[in-house]
């Protein structure tokens, strides 16, 4: 059953996305913003390919970086060979090399991992990820060990003045691939395979009775997802011009899981939101504080506990309220909750930063906030930040009750009207 193929709303949405990709570097032209956006584009492909497993196929993988990383390794070798003149390879087609490599490894490892589903699949994917990581370190000749393999993305003669040396040209290359991959992965969700993947996720037993081999469906879904992961790996290889063991590590695999989940697993566009937020956390926040991973992990835990549909579900939940023109009633409770959360966050950040200053040897224990400077070795700042945190949490609790009370009244009246 298909509903309204390519309706107006969908056309508008995709055109707006394309326009956004085109116009973004004109608006945010600083080189920092450009790097950020290039990484976001790569991460969007990676997170979407991950969601082909977790969201669409119900396969929780702890080793997805295997496919992007190995794709990146093969592309870096292809690029280096092309640079030596072994064969002509236009740079824009390099992601295809990465994608095919990802696909090949997806077929190879997927044969083993997709034999089981659920929790066992998760564990096996973790094991395969660890195996590949250890294997990469075992063969320094091909994989370059811890240091990795570096490359130069400028190969051959510039074509129409495009050499892919400047960052802006790399951005557009990533943007085009990102758009194409987004469209392709969305199209895949509409195919019979995409539908069967959903069926296998929701009720494997019934899918078997309809006559599908669930293992085969999982296998195909994983192989295709590995293709897109390989594409993103090749793009990151073009962007950073280096591929190291970190590219296949559990850290990367965990990162893409965090990004996808924070964005919203049940929705196609969720991972796109998640990738943008994640890269923002990684690149922007890591410049400010060494504790950024702690904040990211805490954010992830809060999402798992209170918003299992991710940011996307929070956004989508507001739409019926906005349609009914009742969003105005929610503005005050939302503002109060946000204010309380900010207060609690301020207290938490204060405590975390003080802990960090105390544990790091030789770090300056004197911190300055809002023109006030204080020493983390004394008691008063601890009491002050602790009080701020407790007060913020208490206020947040009240505000959350306020929000849910308003929310319930609106939902009840909406349901009453529908009935």
């Amino acid at each position, binding site marked *: 059953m298909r509903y309204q193929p390519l309706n107006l709303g969908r056309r508008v949405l995709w055109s707006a996305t394309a326009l956004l990709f085109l116009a973004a570097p004109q608006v945010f032209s600083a080189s920092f913003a450009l790097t950020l956006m290039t990484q976001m584009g790569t991460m969007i492909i990676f997170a979407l390919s991950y969601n082909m497993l977790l969201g669409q196929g*119900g396969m*929780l993988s*702890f080793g997805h970086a295997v496919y992007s990383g190995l794709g990146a390794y093969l592309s870096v070798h292809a690029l280096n060979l092309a640079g030596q003149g072994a064969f002509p390879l236009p740079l824009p087609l390099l992601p295809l090399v990465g994608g095919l490599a990802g696909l090949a490894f997806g077929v190879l490892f997927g044969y*083993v991992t997709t*034999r*089981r*589903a*659920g*929790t*066992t699949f*998760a*564990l*096996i994917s*973790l*094991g*395969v990820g*660890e*195996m590949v990581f*250890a*294997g990469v*370190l*075992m*063969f320094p000749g091909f994989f370059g060990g811890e240091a990795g393999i570096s490359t130069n993305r400028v190969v051959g003669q510039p074509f129409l003045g495009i050499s892919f040396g400047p960052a802006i040209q790399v951005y557009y290359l990533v943007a085009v691939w990102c758009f194409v991959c987004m469209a392709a992965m969305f199209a895949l969700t509409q195919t019979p395979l995409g539908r069967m993947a959903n069926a296998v996720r929701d009720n494997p037993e019934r899918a078997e009775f309809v006559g599908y081999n669930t293992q085969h469906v999982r296998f195909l879904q994983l192989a295709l997802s590995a293709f897109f992961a390989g594409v993103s790996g090749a793009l990151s290889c073009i962007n950073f011009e280096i591929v190291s063991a970190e590219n296949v590590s*559990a850290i990367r695999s*965990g990162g893409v*899981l*965090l990004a996808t*989940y924070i964005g919203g697993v049940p929705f196609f566009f969720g991972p796109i939101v998640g990738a943008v937020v994640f890269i923002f956390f990684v690149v922007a926040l890591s410049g400010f504080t060494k*504790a950024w*991973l*702690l904040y*990211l*992990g*805490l954010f*992830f*835990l809060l999402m*798992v*506990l209170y918003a*299992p549909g991710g940011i996307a579900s929070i956004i989508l939940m507001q739409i019926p309220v906005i349609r009914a023109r009742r969003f105005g009633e929610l503005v005050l409770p939302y503002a109060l909750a946000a204010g309380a959360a900010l207060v609690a966050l301020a207290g938490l950040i204060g405590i*975390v930063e003080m*802990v*960090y200053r105390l*544990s*790091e*040897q030789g770090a300056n224990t004197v911190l300055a906030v809002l023109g006030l400077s204080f020493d983390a070795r004394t008691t008063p700042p601890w009491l002050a930040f602790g009080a701020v945190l407790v007060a913020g949490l208490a206020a947040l609790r009240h505000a959350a009750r306020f929000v849910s009370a308003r929310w319930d009244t609106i939902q009840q009246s909406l349901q009453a009207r529908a009935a």
Partner: protein
Amino acid sequence: MLPVLFSAMEFVLVQTLNGISYGLLLFMLSSGLTLVFSLMGVLNFAHASFYMLGAYFAYQVSAKFGFWPALVVAPLLVGAVGMLVERWGLRTVHKYGHVAELLFTFGLAYLIEEAVHLIWGRLAVEYRVPAELDGPLFHIMGSQYPIYRGFMMLVSVTMLVSIWLALTRTRIGLVIQAALTHPQTVEALGHNVPRVFMLVFGGGAALAGLAGVIGGNAFVTEPGMAAAVGPIIFVIVVVGGMGSLAGAFVASLLIGCLQTFAVSLDWSLGGITVSQAAPVLPYLLMVLLLIFRPKGLMGTREG
């Protein structure tokens, strides 16, 4: 000829003893994981993090009060942390299903590792074997066997025997066993099953903590120790068969011996020595087993 044979025998003997002591340590970890998994259906991704917490708590306590108090206090502290996690975290996500629970513990592992970074720094801490346990226990054909290795075996075996007695001979143990298969019936008989879950989760965490106390100073106490041992115990659970305690026991000893032997062999295969390939071997074993026996060594269910 004879000296060569003797040195080979000595090598095998010492490595087997080392392998068994390491395997028993692994079983202390994997048994808690398996018990929690079969009781609650939750695969606790943060299990290795509890192991790490045990080592760090023991380091902190032993710096103030010495090793012996730490041996008791640190596992209890970790168990308390585990109970808090079950009560205020897992019980909340339980309604979203097993994937959400797994993701919650995954996030928790992240958080614990970062918290350890923040509090104790990124380098290894000086958590040492106590002086009274430092030294050789006995000599086998010229090479000495450390007391601490023997102590590790003693602690693991004592712990495991008492757990087994507690599970089979005490009232609470019988309730736990019954709750494994028939939670509704146990609840109907008036037992507080959620509290049993909390106790078991805390118990599993305490067991991991104890493994951390005795493993932390035998090996090294550093923020990466959870990430290093975590995948291994998951492999053990898969190889042994999900939810099978006996399988976990066999797989723990197998992988303990496999790793100990592999790191000390320098036979070369195609330019790579066995010791270089050692980190890959457990995972390779898992992959091979999955191809030929998907339900694991002693697993009962497939799926």
